[in-house]
């Protein structure tokens, strides 16, 4: 495919995301400052930080929901440039799960799941529906296929949202605070699905404050503040031996209660 040819050669065979000196401004407000991050295939990364630290903005740059002004970004071998085809190619490879689910309220669950495969990947309808049912079973709600999103609980909706992304067979999954809009009793069912996904070797970038989840599945935990990556480490080191006082303070604030 021409898109692949335009991509720059990978610097390391396994790096599926390469972010170099990424900078972003909202007007004159500097949101992301010199972000450098390489993600290996199959790696699970948890990103945390206070609100306004730029963590959501960073992962939203990866599938170009946000533009950036300087730096470079290569996703699965395709460089993010000002080109409609490149952007669409990258979005096909990257799944995203949102804080507020963003299911399409006018479509049934099944239609939500098959929309991408049918219109973007041009799959036949039967095949798309079979795949959709497979993923619905994996997130444990096959019986809701013909309902509308409004009829489901928050936790169920979020699991549908995960299944919707998986139907596009993405190489990378981005999670933008997937549990923070959920009632407490529903968080676990969503996290369970995510843990299962991690166990299967999916490359995941996850903005979340669920520290239990981070300890359990993350290969690396990143702490962002003021638009910078302040600290990154293995979960063990991250939680037990924070290097900066900033992270120490943050951890004490979120773990206090």
């Amino acid at each position, binding site marked *: 495919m021409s898109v692949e040819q*335009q991509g720059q050669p990978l610097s390391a065979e396994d790096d599926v995301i390469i972010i170099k000196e990424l*900078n972003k*401004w909202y007007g*004159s*407000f*500097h949101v992301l*400052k010199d972000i450098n991050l390489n993600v290996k295939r199959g790696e699970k990364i948890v990103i945390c930080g206070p609100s306004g630290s730029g963590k959501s903005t960073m992962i939203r740059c990866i599938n170009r929901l946000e*533009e*950036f*002004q*300087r730096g*470079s970004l290569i996703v699965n071998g395709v*460089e*993010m*440039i*000002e*080109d*409609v*085809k*490149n952007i669409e190619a990258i979005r096909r490879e990257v799944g995203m799960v949102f804080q507020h689910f963003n299911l399409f309220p006018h479509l049934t669950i099944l239609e939500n799941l098959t929309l991408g495969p049918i219109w973007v990947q041009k799959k036949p309808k039967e095949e798309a529906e079979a795949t959709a049912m497979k993923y619905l079973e994996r997130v444990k709600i096959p019986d809701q296929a013909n309902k509308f999103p409004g009829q489901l609980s928050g936790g169920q909706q979020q699991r549908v949202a995960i299944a919707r992304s998986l139907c596009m067979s993405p190489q990378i999954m981005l999670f933008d605070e997937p549990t923070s809009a959920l009632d407490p009793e529903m968080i676990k069912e969503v996290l369970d699905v995510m843990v299962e996904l991690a166990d299967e070797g999916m490359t995941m970038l996850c903005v979340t404050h669920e520290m239990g989840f981070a300890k359990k599945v993350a290969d690396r935990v990143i702490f962002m503040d*003021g*638009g910078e990556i302040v600290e990154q480490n293995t979960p063990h080191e991250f939680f037990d031996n924070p290097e900066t006082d900033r992270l120490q303070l943050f951890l004490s604030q979120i773990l206090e209660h």
Partner: protein
Amino acid sequence: MSKEHMPEVRPVKSGSFFNNPRNRALIYQAILLFGLGFFFYTIVSNALSNMEARGIKSGFGFLFTTSGFDILMSLVDYSATDTYGRTFLVGLLNTILVSIIGIFLATIVGFLMGVAYFSPNWLIKRLSIVYVETFRNIPLLLQVFFWYFAVLAALPDVRDSISFGESVFLNVRGLFFPEIIDEAGSGFVYAALAAAIVAIIVLRKWAHKRQDETGDQFPVFLTSIGILIGLPLLALIVSGNPFHLEYPEASRFNIRGGISVIPELMALTLALTVYTGAFIAEAVRAGVQSVPHGQTEAARSIGLKESRIMSLIVVPQAMRVIVPLLNSEYQSLVKNSTLATAIGYPDLFTVFVGTSLNQTGQAIEIVFMTMAVYFVINMTISFLMNRVNDSVALAERK
């Protein structure tokens, strides 16, 4: 956070020329520009050749030529020997007249009926509902015709006029009432009226300040009314009533003197008032309903009186919803006043797009001038209502 870096250049390299969204945008806009240019070029050249073929003059020279037709009613002196420019002015003033009367009356009717919806009295509430649902669902033109051909045309002849105390007459020729004529010394009464208004403003400020400082409340409303009526009345008595009323005098076939309202104006105003009033009532209802019930309960819980709850809590919040709706209703009223042409009330539309266009054939100039006038009137209304809106809008986060 730091401001030291500013973005320098647009990002990175570009892919193929056409896949760059910026280039695409440029291409689409160029196509649109070209298409529009072609469209306007075609219609303008067609229009020019058509007008030449039909011998229609162009330009605004006609405004200075004699119009040669009479107008039923005008607020300024006008005769058939005046120019089309003068015709335009007469029409414009008539349009403004009917708009102002219509807006004024429709607002009163609308607010009364809108508030009536919340009456604890079942009959009044029904009355409001029936009024709104009846009149907003019947075409305005039909209502104009109804008033003009079915109601006003059924009024008695001049000699059988319905009279109210031999001073106000109503008949098939219209409504006639006395005119107030100034005599020497009337300036004194007007001065007293102006003084009363100033006094009220000062009084309100003073009462407000006193309430802020001492907490005492002053019966501002009653005092204001007292001043407003009392001061001019006093002046009237002192100066020995420098006015007289000119009563309309009924003869067998006609009525002379006083102020007359032609039936066309009456029918149009009635229809516009009743129709727009129904929409305004609906707007008022929506506005009051938009204030959450919790607001009233909260006000009760801090011990405000019911009347104070309305004026201090509900109305200010309801106005946020009502004012933008009023804005568009007023604008529709002005646009709808063009229906004058159906019954021959000489508004701008009737005398200009109707008669003048017929006589001169200069369709393009006349239609555009008229459209421009309605645009300007509506922009003025919009401007004024936005000022009102700014003063009632809540400061919100964001």
